[in-house]
């Protein structure tokens, strides 16, 4: 356990540029933009103009949720490149033989990399998402207070909105991570084979599978095969879209964590989720065996 934690920490140190430093810069930029928006009058902080007839809480919840989803997109991209980078990093950094001189198996090293990609690194991005939400909340509260708005009655509602949206973001991130586990495993396994070329190679895998099926069994085109349909459905985003559309249109409803959660969980095909986990386990094991047997530098 001690060595596993040490290996996970090593991943954090190696990849903190993508998961800490870059998000920190982005957060600073977002903060600057929010500050500017409020101070130059782009946002009506009195919430009494013709544009904003909404309550501050509703605006805040929407802004925070949009920011949170932007961070989720960043996480998806960063994890994809993390898989491609971290599973080939020891070769690229010429450190393979150092790690092989340690009393840890290749499987343990690969599992540590994978676990880091599922825990510490997403947790860091979630932390920045929440920090962004708190910054918006702070700037909103301060500017409202400065313009004489009744912040005392609004602040508890804003904090409640923060809590609900934060919980929704955390849940959405966890479910997306679990759903896309095989994609992360695939790009990681590919990286063990082909290094950073794993990024384009992995992107081509669905197309190659469909072309093979089309060539072997026929059909209108590679995009009308069973494998393409399956992979397309497997890559669809897990989001409670109908609830979110309704909530964004309805200008009076506060964010409902309950409805968001129930609709999100109902969307999940748990059998497919399990299949994905098994596939991910097989891919990580295969990658570790390949590394054990054939990767020396």
């Amino acid at each position, binding site marked *: 356990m001690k*060595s596993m934690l040490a290996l996970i920490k090593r991943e954090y140190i190696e990849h903190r540029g993508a998961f800490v430093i870059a998000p920190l810069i982005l957060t600073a930029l977002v903060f600057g933009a929010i500050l500017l928006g409020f101070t130059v009058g782009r946002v009506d902080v009195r919430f009494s103009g013709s544009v904003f007839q909404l309550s501050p809480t509703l605006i805040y919840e929407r802004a925070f949720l949009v920011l949170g989803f932007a961070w989720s997109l960043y996480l998806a991209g960063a994890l994809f490149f993390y898989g491609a980078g971290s599973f080939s990093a020891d070769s690229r950094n010429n450190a393979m033989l150092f790690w092989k001189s340690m*009393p840890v198996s290749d499987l343990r090293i690969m599992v540590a990399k994978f676990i880091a990609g599922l825990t510490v690194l997403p947790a860091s991005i979630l932390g920045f998402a929440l920090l962004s939400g708190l910054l918006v909340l702070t700037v909103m509260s301060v500017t409202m207070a400065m313009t004489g708005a009744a912040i005392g009655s609004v602040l508890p509602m804003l904090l409640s909105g923060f809590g609900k949206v934060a919980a929704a973001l955390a849940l959405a991130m966890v479910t997306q991570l679990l759903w896309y586990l095989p994609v992360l495993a695939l790009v990681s396994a590919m990286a063990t084979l082909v290094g950073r070329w794993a990024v384009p190679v992995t992107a081509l895998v669905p197309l190659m599978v469909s072309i093979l099926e089309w060539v072997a069994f026929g059909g209108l085109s590679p995009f009308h095969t069973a494998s393409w349909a399956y992979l397309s459905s497997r890559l669809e985003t897990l989001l409670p879209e109908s609830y979110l559309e309704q909530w964004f249109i309805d200008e009076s409803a506060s964010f409902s964590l309950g409805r968001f959660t129930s609709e999100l969980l109902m969307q999940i095909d748990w059998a497919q989720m399990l299949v994905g986990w098994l596939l991910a386990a097989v891919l990580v094991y295969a990658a570790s065996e390949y590394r054990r047997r054939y990767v020396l530098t």
Partner: protein
Amino acid sequence: MTSEAEPIITARGLRKKLGGREILHGLDFDIPAGRIYGLVGHNGAGKTTTLNAILGLTSCEGSIRVLGEDPFARRAQLMRNVAFISDVASLPRFLRVRELLTLVANIHPSFDQAKARQLLEGTDIRMQARVKELSKGMVAQLHLAVVMAIDAKLLVLDEPTLGLDITYRKRFYRRLLEDYMTEERTLLITTHQVDEIEFMLSDIMFMRDGDLILHMQMEAVNEKFSQLLISDATQKEPARALGPVFEETRFGQTVMVFDGVDRQALSAFGQVSTPTVSDLFVALMERPTSPRGEA
């Protein structure tokens, strides 16, 4: 578990093919505990492949046991008692020195972080420095400190001083000998700068084209091989009659290396001495191939 009498490494019929070409031709050897072995050979002779087989980094045909274990099947377990440096540039460059030491301490049960820090005292290596900021010599010092702080039974060094200047190389080997080697530890080392490690070797192994052409203790080498320096050209032919394994001309003088010829008999033709390991290596590399496995 291995008893004291048991060799620390045993190889029987060790073969390795790469790309359809056999690069190890059925090696047989035992390495006992407490010895300092030098493994010498040309580039491509199979030294690194042999070391990789010992370290469990590659699979081979035949049988190999290190500390009683199959290294390829149980590399991770074996590394608790085996340390190696295969390339001084292989330390993770993104880590700071203190992070590296803490990491190894958390991963390696036989690593003594305090000892590593003590070994680094007096060097220019700062704990806050990143490995990538260190010079090549400093990285070698750091890697050696990490390895020397591991309480291992076997230490394998594959070209550990490649690219380092003479000062660092000398310091590296002196430190290894003075601060690390004990009777319980075995050291197996390959280097092209064989003259620099000759003073510390107890045994020598020469490899040529995937075969072990020499494997003996240094004392036996001194007894078995002789070098004859002939200044008088008329003595060359009678000396040749004794069957030198190697002959060359240096600055107008003839140098011959003999295998198993009485030194008393040779002294009649010129000055007799023991060949250096590098002279012996050159001599034996030129000799026609001996039957496989004969070492």
